[in-house]
Structures are given as structure tokens and as C-alpha cells.
């Protein structure tokens, strides 16, 4: 059961990763397009320039969750590397509950009003010709951290599975 849930989370993660990879490529093309337009055709669009950081911020905000499930976040690992799988799993479970979730909750609930304010005044770009719907991009902050909390559930389940496997391995070794 737990293994199945873990697999589902990893599938979801690969899917999200693919989307974000495409967003990154779009961002590269977007910036390149703007450079060409600006230097060769002397024609720049504020909307396109704002699109650059819209793509960029969605990419890195949701990327935090992808990196979590793919073990992409740096650790200070001079002790961690020497720990057993069991111990690593315990550190990760405790760390997720004690460290990751509180931070994500703080950002999630701390930014809700910020988005609501933006929606109520129907905030748009401060530059003429910029993009409308500022609340939409601002909403990515609570949304991405909400998604991070959701993914941390998958991460915890993954660690629980590692813990269980480590347990059975030991028993197998004991029988030999």
C-alpha cells in the first residue's frame, strides 16, 4: 500500500519535473527572443519581458518540491553520509515534520492575505503594456508551498518504506 503511494508520488514528481523542464526551455526562448527583438529589431515588449520572470518564478517555486522527492537539496553531509539507511530515514522523517512543514506552513499562510489584497484591488503591472492579473503570479507562492507540503507527505512515505526495508534486510541477514 505505502509502496504504491510512493510510486504514485514519484510518477507525479516526474510529471511535474517534465512540465518545469519545459517551462525552463520556454524561459530560455523567451529571454533569447527578447534579446533579439531588442538589439536587432529595436522593439521590446514589456509583456514579454514580464513573462520571463513569470516563467522563472513558477519554475523555481515548484522545483523545490521536485528537488525534494529527487533528493536534490544540499545537505551538510560529512556525518550524514556515514549514517545507516535507517538513521538517514529517521533524520528525514523527523526533519520533514519539524523543519520542512513549519516553514512551508508559515509561507503558505503568511502569503494568503498578500494574494487576496492583490486580487481585491485587481492589481496589474505598474508598467504600461505589462501583464495583468498580478494576483495570479502572487498566488503561486502559497500554491507552490501547499504543493510542497503535499509532496513532503510523499517524501515521508518514501522514508518510511526505506525504514521498513532496512528492517527486513536486517532480519534476512540475521537468518543467514
Amino acid at each position, binding site marked *: 500500500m505505502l509502496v504504491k503511494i510512493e510510486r504514485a508520488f514519484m510518477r507525479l514528481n516526474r510529471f511535474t519535473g517534465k512540465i518545469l523542464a519545459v517551462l525552463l*526551455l520556454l524561459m530560455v526562448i523567451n529571454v533569447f527572443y527578447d534579446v533579439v527583438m531588442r538589439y536587432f529589431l529595436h522593439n521590446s515588449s514589456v509583456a514579454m519581458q514580464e513573462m520571463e520572470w513569470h516563467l522563472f518564478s513558477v519554475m523555481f517555486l515548484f522545483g523545490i518540491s521536485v528537488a525534494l522527492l529527487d533528493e536534490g537539496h*544540499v545537505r551538510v553531509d560529512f556525518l550524514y553520509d556515514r549514517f545507516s539507511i535507517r538513521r538517514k530515514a529517521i533524520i528525514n522523517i523527523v526533519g520533514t515534520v519539524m523543519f*520542512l512543514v513549519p516553514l512551508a506552513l508559515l509561507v503558505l499562510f503568511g502569503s494568503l492575505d498578500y494574494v487576496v489584497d492583490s486580487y481585491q484591488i485587481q492589481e496589474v503591472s505598474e508598467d504600461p503594456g505589462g501583464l495583468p492579473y498580478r494576483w495570479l503570479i502572487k498566488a503561486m507562492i502559497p500554491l507552490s508551498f501547499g504543493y510542497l507540503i503535499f509532496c513532503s507527505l510523499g517524501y515521508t512515505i518514501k522514508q518510511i518504506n526505506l525504514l521498513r526495508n532496512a528492517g527486513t534486510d536486517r532480519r534476512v541477514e540475521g537468518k543467514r
Partner: protein
Amino acid sequence: MTGLVMFCAALAMLVVGYPVAFTFGSVSIFFGIIASVVYLQGDLSPALIAGEFFQMFSMMPFRIYAIMKNTILMAVPLFIFMGILLQRSDLAERLLEAMGSLFGRVRGGLAVSTVLVGTLLAASTGVVGASVVAMGVISLPVMLKYGYSKRLATGTICASGTLGQIIPPSIVLIILGDVFQQPVGDLFRAAVGPGLILVGCYIAYILIISVIHRRVAPAMPIDEDLTRRQSLGRALFAIVPPLTLIVMVLGSIFGGIATPTESAAVGCVGAVVLAALYRKLSWQVVEESALETVKITAMVFAILIGATAFSMVFVYTGADYLVEDILTNLPGQKWTFLILSMLVIMALGFFIDFIEISYIVVPILLPIAEIIGINPLWFAILIAMNLQTSFLTPPFGFSLFYLKGVCPPEVQTVDLYRGVIPFITIQVIVLCSIVIFPDFYGFH
């Protein structure tokens, strides 16, 4: 006081090994609660504490939104993507073979060519791990085969691989530019001199040592299969395209034609063209490189968000004034401060990553440097140079880990540790020379 305790507690918690970004963020939350309690002086009604606590973090969404809108930091994923694409098109392999065939016949030539390739890789990809691994896989066996000493070979590879930290375009310099609020282009320009001097010193050291100790770096026997012209042609095909790309990207930044972010995007397109030229381009390569880039970028920005929470509590508790008070009242102000901050960064560099140091420690030191009147560009380059050294220092230098991972079994960890010592010494000498002779490097 709470802020300083938090700083130490955060460092202690990092050692456990949970991802840095979340550890920093949440240690700040716990200390934020403590700071609220301290502030309220014993009035422990939860509503008041909660009010004070949320007051402390009320700027959080604004700060995150500022990071999202920061077009300078947008250069980070672009340069990473460019680097990974180039790495995937086997740039390192080609360069090493080409340079080896050009310089191998000279005493110490293989090591010198490794340094030169490291320099080119630094200016194009700047991915330390990838450079060290590529050189470890390709040039280490060749050097060992032709009788180079293990120490010289491994030391050269580790040192050349870390050049990506100081030679622009480098991620460290972009991040420091953000922290220092200095134009990234200026930082890039300021780093060229020190970077090239460092390369020169490495090469000089290798040449001198291979003349003094004739056995550490013998000349390679002449390869009969290839004529000089053939090897020259191959070398040109390997060197000219990436060199063009480097000149284009750095040239447009230095010439003030384009911002680093714009140049980086052009560099990405250039890297795609290069990959096509070397017949390594496929959708799979592009997608995998993009995914890799997303993860590395997210990792960097997660730390930035964690560090933001940290700095909010740090400033709230007035710890910044405390540090300022202590450090501005030191005898011999400027020099004591410089030496002290360099020692602290170097010591921390033994254990933690350059990203954490840039986002946590540097912002604490920066206002003091401003008060004392230290040239920010100079200070930034000193820090970058210092952080580069931390990649080499045993026992936790990243380059050493990367190289150890691909070493043949007869090379022992001790060889690596001893091998990097002369290069660390060179680094420290160059660092000191920048401190003592800023004018020579163009800092005033």
C-alpha cells in the same frame, strides 16, 4: 543575543544532515517564537506571542515576490543550463584530448593542459563537479599511465576543476552580486584578473616542479599514429567553437552590450548549436539537462528563501547591531575586520556550502564592511576567492569528493589530500596578494 544563539544553533542543526534550506528556515521559526517571548517579557498569552511572531514574518511574501521578480538572479538557471548542455556534449573530453596532444610532449605538459582545459571549462560551464569528474575520468588515467606522480596529477585536477568558482561566468559571483547589490557584470570583470593570475601560478608551479623533480611529470612519448597537422586540426575543432561561445558571452557582458541574463540566454542557444555541431543534440539530452537545471536552481532558491526567514529573525532581535558593535570596535578596524572575516569564511567553508555562506554569513558582514569603507567589489572578489579555496580543503572539499569518486583504486585519499596542499598554498598566496596589493588587480 537571541539572534547570535540562533546562528550557532542553526550551524549545529545543519550537521545532522537534513537539507540546509529547510533547516535554516525552521530554526528561524523556532527562534522567532523565542524572540517574541523575550520581547514580551514574560507576558505569555498565546495571542500576543502569535501576534508578535506574525509581525516578525509579515514581510515574507514581499521578500519572496522580490526574489521572483529579480531578473539578475534569472541568470543563475540560464548559466547552469548552458553549462549542463555543454557538459552533455562531451566538451571536456574533446578539450582534454586536444590539449593533451598539443602539450603532452613537454615535461609537465599533460598537467599544464589539464589546467588550461579547466580554465576553458570554467569560462564556459562553470560546473565544478562536472569538470572535476570529467578530468578525473579522462586525464587522470593518462597522467598516471605516463608516469606522473599521483599527488601532482590529483592536485592539478582538483585545483583546475574549481576554477569555475572564480572565473566568470560563475554562479558564486552572480549570487554575491545579488547580496552586495553590485552589478554582476562589474564583478565578472573584476574576477578575470585574479582568476587568470591564479591559472598562471598553477602553470608556473607545475612547470617548476616538473623541472626540479624530474620524475613527477615526465614528457609523453611521441604518438606515431598522428601527424602534427592532424592533431592540430583536431585540436582546433575542439577548441575554437567553445572559445567562440566564451568570447561571445563574456564579451557582450564586458562590452556592456547585454546584461548577464541576456548573455546567458544567448549562451544557452549557443550551447544548443555547439551540441548539434558535435552531434550530441537530442530531445532527451535537452530535457534531461533542463530537469537537472530546474532541480539545482530550486535548491539554490530554497536556500535563499530559508535565509530570508533567518535574516528576518536575526535583524528583529537586533543581532546585526550587536555584531556591528563588536566588529567596528576592534583595534585596527579595517585589517582586523578583513582578516577576521576571511578566517571565518574559510573556517565555515570547511563545513558548509558557498550558497549558505553567501546568503547567511556575507549579509551579516556586509553592512560592517560598508561602515569601515571597504571597496565592495574588492571584498566580493576576496570572498569568492576564499570560497573557491573551500572546495579544495580536506576533509570536506567538494572537489576531493568528486575526484575520489572516479579515482582508480591505487590512488588513495591521502594522495588526494597531499596533492592539493601546494595548490591550496598557491590559492592562499594569491588571496593574500589581492588583500595586500589591491591596486595591482584594479581595485581602488
